[in-house]
């Protein structure tokens, strides 16, 4: 009997504990997120300040960029004043004493410049101004690729003693600035590349199309200004997509939205003479594709299938086939013979856009994927794009 009682007691305890744990967890789950504590808020402010400096510092160390970041550095280090200098001069000064400390002053008027490998600490700055409120100074080196490019100077009110925390903070702030300056060197390289890429992207939206689209919109301005305004908005969105150059990959839903805008602009030109049929299974919409991979195919279909005759019909079909996705763009235009079709994908003789898409797709997904072109003279052209549903590292931004 005693045994039974103790078992019952034990069960009670276990069940009670379980219910209590469940209730506590449920309460925490239901409770709105706690208000941020002071420490966290301090951290956030610091992070925010650091974050704010990054874009400016990435443009390199100049009077302009220095002036923009000293305010953030002041918040970050909690010093009374801060200065950024190159090897000789003060580039920017912020905080106490800014009435008589200016950009362009000799750095030596404040402190000896920092050296590559150590902080320089002085208990009294070398200011000759009689009412200067500042006292102790920490100068930390700014390094790019191990080479001294300037100094970060933190200054404190007269009479304050520098603590190890201060030196530590100043050193960290300086290394944050250094790291961003270092990235700037790389950025310059990358920016040159990006400009080249943008030129290429611009080349992908054919000037032919831009000219025609704008001409069509211009035609509406008098007859139907509202329509013209709508079309112009579409055109702006259209170009925005093409210029969104930091997004190499998008979902097919996005790309189709872009094709949609493109077709709407083409409709402005052709009206009812351009028939479009779109059959896309919703399952293919999350597939990730390189930006501007479907649109050139559609544009090609419009140019070769519709433009020459002045009318035509375009069909876009998207299907999912277990691990793959298949997109077909078909026109009912003049078509071409097999010989010509073979050269188009290779990039010879017209269809630069298509060859470019093929090259990009195969570079990303391998030779098993990409475009296939089928055409017969007089019977239109079909371009089939095959893509995998997933490829490691290929993600929509």
């Amino acid at each position, binding site marked *: 009997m005693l045994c039974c009682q103790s078992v019952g007691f034990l069960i009670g305890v276990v069940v009670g504990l379980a219910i209590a744990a469940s209730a506590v967890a449920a309460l925490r789950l239901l409770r709105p997120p706690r208000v941020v504590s002071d420490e966290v808020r301090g951290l956030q402010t610091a992070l925010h300040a650091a974050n704010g400096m990054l874009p400016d510092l990435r443009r390199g160390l100049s009077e302009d960029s220095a002036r923009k970041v000293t305010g953030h550095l002041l918040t970050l280090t909690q010093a009374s004043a801060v200065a950024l200098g190159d090897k000789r001069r003060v580039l920017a000064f912020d905080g106490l004493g800014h009435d008589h400390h200016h950009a362009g002053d000799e750095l030596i008027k404040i402190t000896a410049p920092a050296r590559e490998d150590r902080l320089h600490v002085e208990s009294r700055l070398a200011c000759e101004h009689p009412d200067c409120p500042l006292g102790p100074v920490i100068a930390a080196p700014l390094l790019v690729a191990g080479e001294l490019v300037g100094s970060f100077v933190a200054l404190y009110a007269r009479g304050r003693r520098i603590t190890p925390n201060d030196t530590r903070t100043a050193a960290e702030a300086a290394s944050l600035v250094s790291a961003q300056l270092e990235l700037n060197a790389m950025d310059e390289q990358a920016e040159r590349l990006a400009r080249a890429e943008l030129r290429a992207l611009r080349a992908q939206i054919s000037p032919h199309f831009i000219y025609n689209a704008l001409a069509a919109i211009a035609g509406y301005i008098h007859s139907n200004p509202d329509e013209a305004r709508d079309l112009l908005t579409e055109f702006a969105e259209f170009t925005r997509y093409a210029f969104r150059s930091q997004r190499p990959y998008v979902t097919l839903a996005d790309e189709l939205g872009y094709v949609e805008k493109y077709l709407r602009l083409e409709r402005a030109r052709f009206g009812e003479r351009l028939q479009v049929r779109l059959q*896309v299974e919703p399952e293919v919409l999350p597939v990730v594709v390189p930006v501007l991979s479907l649109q050139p195919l559609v544009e090609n279909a419009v140019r070769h299938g519709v433009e020459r005759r002045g009318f035509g019909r375009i069909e876009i079909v998207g299907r999912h086939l277990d691990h793959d996705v298949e997109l077909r763009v078909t026109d009912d235009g003049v078509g071409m013979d097999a010989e010509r079709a073979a050269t188009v994908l290779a990039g010879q003789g017209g269809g630069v856009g298509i060859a470019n898409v093929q090259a990009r797709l195969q570079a990303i997904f391998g030779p*098993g994927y990409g475009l296939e072109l089928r055409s017969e003279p007089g019977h239109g052209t079909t371009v089939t794009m095959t893509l995998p*549903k997933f490829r490691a590292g290929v993600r929509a931004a």
Partner: protein
Amino acid sequence: MIVALVAVAGVTLGTLGLGTWGMRFARTTSDLLVASRLVTPWWNAAAISGEYLSAASFLGIAGLEMQIGASALWQSLGFTAGYLALLLFVAAPLRRYGSYTIPDFAEARLHSPTLRLVAAAIVLVIAGFYLVPQLKGAGLALNVVIGSPYWVGVVVVAVIVAVNVALGGMRGITFVQAFQFWIKVFAIAVPAILLLIHFGGLPERAALFGRSLPHAGSRGLTVRLGSRQRAQFPQAGSFIVHGQTVHVRAGGWVSLPAHTPISIPPGGVVPVAAGTPALTGARWSRPVGGTGQGAPVLVYSLLIATFLGTMGLPHVLVRFYTNPDGYAARRTTVRVLGLLSLFYLFPAIYGALGRVLAPQLYITGQTDDVVLSLPRIAWPGAGGTILTAVTCAGAFAAFLSTSSGLLVSLAGTFSHDVWPRLARGRPQGASLRRLHFRLAALGAVVIPALVALVAQGVDIAILVGWAFALAASSFCPMFLLGIWWTRLTARGAAWGMVAGMLVATGMIFAGLALGEPTGGALALLEQPAIVSVPVAFATMIGISLVDPLRVSDVEQQMLALHAPEGLGLRLDDEERAQLLA
């Protein structure tokens, strides 16, 4: 059973037709408005539930409940709770990562083509294990519908599914699968509700909920067996065969002849086929009992297998790809929980009613039939016939959708993951991949069909439980650790999965080799998850910790898994102004 045949044929043809003409669901317009056509969470949830609800849910739970009583209901809880685990730990990160199949994820997350192959092999095993009970259910169902031998149903459904998948039907179209879900809910709910209305509530309370042993009704009971059957009288009773009355003492075994009417006198206790427990009293109505499958350790093992195994089912996971983003993946999973909760209210009703109204299933041992034959047996006449036709049609919907999904996973894994490794380096065009897929679909159905032919005696619910146990001891640790732990390495993941698989399959086959589990520790062989899952986790963590070869870009991986969509994509005003300028 013409009505049932027509219903089954209708559902089958409807399913095939929808698969083939499913393209029509993709709207044809000239104004596209792509965004509005993304699949909504409700559609997706119904599609996932449709793919998920298999023979085990439709037939197995009720059949097991007839045998072991209330403890069978843990299955419906576990099958649902699995989606809670999926929701809490996997759904959103996995969708954000973007991978389509499990091998996709394994390879990309840990940069190991070898791991892809290991994962692919495990997909083949799990999907194969899961196909067996589907085909078994088909064999039983066709037997109920047209009285064909068991093997006919297995072969017919295997051929239909394989040919259909090979021809490109059943491409897992969301709307078709969602439609299948509602067919299944309708087919299991409506007969149950109508039966309860017909009887004016729960009938014959004496035998219900195991208060007494299954008895013949007031007009006696007559059965014909397809083959000779050994059966045991749990209490003293009698039966009439060839005009002779045979009296049997309590616990006595008899051998019942085939192809001849065997009668049980009115109110007489029903003999129970070998291997079919017919629990009574408290043992039936207690969800956790002292022995058998209701033993606490087995219940826990089952709950672990289903809770953790759902996230590793290959055919279910690919469905999450259709969600547009991580938020939608979460929303979808919550809706799946709701839809499954709705469905799982009903199998329990069949199990409880079957014990009272269809005691002949204890004689034949085919308790997995109960959902199919209960309406016909319990309600003689047109009403019962029509309702049986409805449940048969629903069961076929369950086999077709689940086995198609599994076969697509099998064939896709083979043509996409395994074959390219065998044909090293040779680039494969899209058409060649399609061909491999078709051939694989035809070939992959063979082994599960053969296993289904020999596994007639194993309960559907047990067979499905194994597939869950395998998934829980291989893919579950890989997902949980791969998503939440930065330290996981390719080698750790591979060995962990292999260890989990080996322990689980080893225990299952040892159990099969030893025959009927006699209780105690041996009974665990039937539910290996409680052993194999910890083994898999421990191996994975242990080997990862000592592995010097860490994943190099783990920060990027975590970013891809956890960062919400749309970061930095918001076009700010400055950018817009520049573009418009």
